[in-house]
């Protein structure tokens, strides 16, 4: 049977970088050259926010500071996302290479991988790989070492500044921005922090060149993306697909024939109902995603889905800023009250306004993005909220 969606095999396959060949070749190139290639590739961060990687590296490279850091964000906590674990266990060398290239470009000597506590079981294997890497690095006369820092069960540490706080031994509370990490990151030094997958994409671009890379995807969403597919699907798992496909194609491929909604981008992403499958593009021009695709069929109560998400946010908010700490509790209590009949249906409108306020006032991406799932679920499945 022909596949409905374009499969790609750049991240995991084709070239596993056994001998750190790409790294070796790239190290001989000029920094300007590498940044130019990244810029031309159109690569945007794969963690979900989609900031152009070339710009991030350029800003960090321009900082007139000696001490700089490269951090790989492997605090994959977004519900429905599990691709970074797969990448780190299948192609760790590509991740290390990507970090090393970044270190060369910005002038860093030290890199960190912040691995979520839930993935602690991966540590021994990763340490073995890292040891190998350091041997190669020495051979390549590369003054760069990587250390793994473990998280301990806090979703919010996936937020970059919270991650730095956690690395510094503090509570994972997001910082005020500006300053941005490229100016003041880990230990207040210029830091490039990228998602696991982003670093691998860098290696891919260095290997195949920006021209080839750009052939994949669309204007705003270049390249491929590793998707984590779960929920009501006959084939849950990890898939590398071209960016920019319409959601309807995705559902045809992965749905169980009874799909009523897809949550794109995890609990902090958007819920797309069936009627919008056709017009929704998966990518930065449509619904952006860090890779989480959760499929719901008609047997699922979207009230339960939303309630589950809100319970997640209520516990995983760092708690420092008012809109997120109290807002999450209010949204959850609010839909419960409406469901019970203790609050009138119009209270949902009040909650929608609240989620809007959270979106524009919360200190970090977590609090700002609660409104995404809240409004997209309440708007599209209002009856399910009430009855």
């Amino acid at each position, binding site marked *: 049977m022909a596949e409905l969606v374009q499969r790609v095999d750049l991240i995991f396959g084709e070239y596993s970088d056994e001998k750190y060949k790409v790294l070796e070749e790239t190290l001989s190139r000029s920094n300007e050259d590498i940044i130019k290639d990244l810029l031309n590739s159109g690569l945007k961060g794969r963690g979900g926010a989609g900031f152009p990687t070339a710009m991030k590296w350029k800003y960090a490279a321009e900082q007139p500071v000696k001490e700089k850091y490269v951090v790989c964000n492997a605090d994959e906590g977004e*519900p429905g996302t599990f691709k970074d674990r797969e990448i780190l266990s299948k192609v760790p060398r590509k991740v290390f290479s990507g970090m090393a290239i970044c270190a060369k470009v910005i002038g860093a000597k030290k890199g960190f991988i912040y691995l979520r*506590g839930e993935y602690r079981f991966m540590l021994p294997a990763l340490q073995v790989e890292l040891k190998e890497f350091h041997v190669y690095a020495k051979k390549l006369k590369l003054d760069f070492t990587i250390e793994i820092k473990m998280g301990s069960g*806090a979703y919010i540490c996936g937020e970059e500044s919270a991650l730095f706080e956690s*690395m510094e031994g503090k509570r994972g509370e997001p910082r005020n921005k500006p300053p941005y990490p490229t100016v003041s990151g880990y230990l207040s030094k210029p830091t490039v922090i990228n998602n696991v997958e982003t670093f691998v994409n860098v290696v891919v671009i260095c290997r195949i060149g920006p021209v080839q890379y750009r052939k994949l995807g669309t204007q705003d969403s270049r390249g491929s993306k590793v998707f984590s597919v779960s929920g009501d699907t006959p084939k849950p798992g990890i898939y590398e697909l071209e960016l920019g496909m319409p959601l309807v194609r995705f559902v045809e491929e992965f749905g169980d024939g009874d799909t009523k909604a897809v949550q794109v981008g995890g609990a902090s992403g958007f819920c797309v109902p069936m009627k919008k499958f056709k017009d929704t593009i998966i990518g930065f021009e449509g619904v952006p995603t860090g890779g989480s695709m*959760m499929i719901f069929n008609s047997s699922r109560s979207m009230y339960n889905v939303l309630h589950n998400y809100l319970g997640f946010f209520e516990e995983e908010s760092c708690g420092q800023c008012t809109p997120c700490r109290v807002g999450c509790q209010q949204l959850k209590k609010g839909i419960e009250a409406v469901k019970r009949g203790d609050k009138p249906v119009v209270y949902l409108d009040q909650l929608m306004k609240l989620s809007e306020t959270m979106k524009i006032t919360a200190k970090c991406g977590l609090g700002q993005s609660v409104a995404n799932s809240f409004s997209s679920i309440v708007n599209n499945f209002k009856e399910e909220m009430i009855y």
Partner: protein
Amino acid sequence: MSPNGNLIRELVEKHGRSRTSLMPILQGVVERQNYIADYDLTDIAKELDLSAAQVYGTATFYSFLDTVPRGKYIIRVCKTITCDMHGKKTIVQTLENMLKIKVGETTQNKKFTLLETNCLGWCHKSPAMLINDEPYTELTPERIHDIIADFMNKS
């Protein structure tokens, strides 16, 4: 010297005395005894020249840095959406029946603690749980029986 003075000194020697060492030290204590006692927190605070409240505040931020006694095997069942949809409730019930404790509790013999946790990242193989660091996926009541029976026979 408090009961764990040696362990903490060992961890401090390994990781250093700066604030950046706090997480690895706390994690090291949890690795050894599954939770961090009040005397451990004060010992760590003393070694790192932090206030006790600062160390307590940091530890309590992280779900895996427990400050109350836990069993030898901490079972953390994922309660986030996909696992919830795919039978988390039955899994928890099976565990509760087998261990004769409720979620949040520890068995009398201090062997098992049963907890629920947020997304473990095994949505495609849900329902899932961790026992200490080890993930167990695609759980069914039958599998739970086998897994727990194994652990019950372990020391």
